[in-house]
């Protein structure tokens, strides 16, 4: 357990070293937030002030919470594990006396904590000043929101790990990563709220783990979903953590069995 804590702490520190990168990320996240907010507010304006349960303030809240979660959830995916598998470096990771997925998860938590604080919160504050955001007065919503964010980070980590683990069988998994990212961005409710989808697309989205990564934490945090109604959504997140966790452990086992590293 100590080893995992140290890995998480080291990962937090590693990311906090690059201040310029953090400033750049905050700036870019903010600009994208304004672009996304413009599109959504224009749509709501045309619809007459309210669209499928979102008024202007709720839509702005939705955009800025999404921009805050983008970095810690790593909406654009990671490729590091896949590259290490391809180059054979993963053999070194497997030799370490800590579980591979465990060390990656610890690193992810450390990094996400930093990214949430340093890259997530500032754009949200800027958004709060410019477009305004509405956060719920109920402290229970904040608590459930924090739990939902933690679970969302875990679900996103596991799904991303599975895409990376596919590199055991695919020589080049960049195509897969691109497809995964595109589908994830849409179905997770990162680009637009999933309740805006037509029924068939909503049904598809609800059958996947993607809404658990973005839509659920945003709904819980913004209080758009009442605390009592957020509980089943958090239950769905827990189910996905179990399912994807089991699947990625099985994938890793099968992958390690088929892994062959040349040279030394």
């Amino acid at each position, binding site marked *: 357990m100590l080893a995992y804590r140290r890995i998480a702490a080291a990962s937090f520190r590693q990311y906090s070293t*690059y201040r*310029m*990168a953090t*400033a*750049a*990320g905050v*700036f*870019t996240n903010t*600009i*994208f937030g*304004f*672009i996304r907010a*413009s*599109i*959504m*507010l*224009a*749509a709501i304006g*045309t*619809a007459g002030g309210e*669209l*499928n349960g979102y008024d202007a303030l709720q839509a702005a809240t939705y955009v800025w919470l999404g921009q805050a979660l983008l970095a810690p959830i790593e909406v654009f995916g990671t490729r590091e594990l896949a590259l290490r598998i391809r180059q054979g470096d993963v053999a070194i990771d497997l030799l370490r006396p800590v579980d591979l997925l465990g060390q990656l998860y610890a690193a992810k938590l450390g990094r996400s904590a930093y990214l949430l604080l340093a890259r997530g919160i500032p754009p949200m504050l800027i958004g709060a000043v410019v477009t305004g955001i509405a956060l719920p007065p109920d402290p229970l919503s904040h608590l459930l929101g924090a739990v939902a964010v933690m679970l969302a980070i875990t679900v996103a980590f596991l799904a991303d790990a599975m895409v990376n683990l596919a590199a055991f069988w695919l*020589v*080049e998994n*960049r*195509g*897969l*990563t*691109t*497809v995964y*990212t*595109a*589908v994830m*961005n*849409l179905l997770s409710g990162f*680009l*637009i709220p999933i309740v*805006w*989808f*037509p029924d068939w*697309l909503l049904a598809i989205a609800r059958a996947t783990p993607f809404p658990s990564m973005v839509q659920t934490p945003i709904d819980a945090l913004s209080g758009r979903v009442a605390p009592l109604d957020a509980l089943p959504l958090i239950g769905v997140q827990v189910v996905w953590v179990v399912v994807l966790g089991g699947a990625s452990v099985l994938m890793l086992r099968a992958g390690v069995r088929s892994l062959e590293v040349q040279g030394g």
Partner: protein
Amino acid sequence: MAETSRSRPSEPRAHRPVSTARMVRTLYGSRIRSQASYRASFVSDLLGQALMVGVEFLELWVILANVGTLGGMTLPQVAVVYGLGSLAFGIADLLLGEIDGLSTYIKSGKLETLMIRPVPMLLQISSLDLSLRRIGRILVGLGMYVVALGIAGFTPTATTLALAVIAPLAGAAIFGALLTMAGAMQFWLIDGREFANAFTYGGNYVASTPGAVFALPMRAFFTFVIPATLVAYAPTLVLLDLPGPMLLPQWTGWMGVPAAILTWALAALLWRAGIRTYTGAGG
């Protein structure tokens, strides 16, 4: 002169300077051949890129399915803007997208290797990691642009037809200049490369959206500072004969070429200054 040199094949080739055209042909040819040899990976990359453009459009489609018009445009009209923007960005990204990785070259010292070669730096970086998978975005963008123009009621005349062809090229030039400026900025901001993403990828996002959705300050910024609305939205107003919003009257649809020239002039200055600032890290 050409005749005499051809009749003497024994003349050592090193004495003849290689023309830029031939350099371009050799460099790009080698990249294309090497990438086409990994067929399965190339096809999956290509499909991935194509799918991404389609999925991104779904965002606008879902909104339009709910409200009917966005920024005063119907679905086919928005599809023209989106297709044109994607096509323009796709061409620029294919040719200059790799410039975004310049900071990696600077950090690893690879840039010094490039500097001592007698080939223009921009041409080297452009051809070094030319990613043919980006053709996927170009193909989908082109398809959407042409089909959507047909559905949205485009009436071809000599002038509108000319604009329909010029617009994606001018747009590609604007994005190319933006990508070059983003690359040049990395000479100063090595770890800050993400700053520029706000203008390159952010510019692409704005360009493929009806410009009327943006509030005036943003519309002004993405027209006069980063000319993103001039890439696709403004030309579409002319092509489909639609009235423009404030700051973007219909005639701005013709401003793509001047904007491209202006941004390239700035990009060239910035790039030169960047190269001059660069001091090797040794190695």
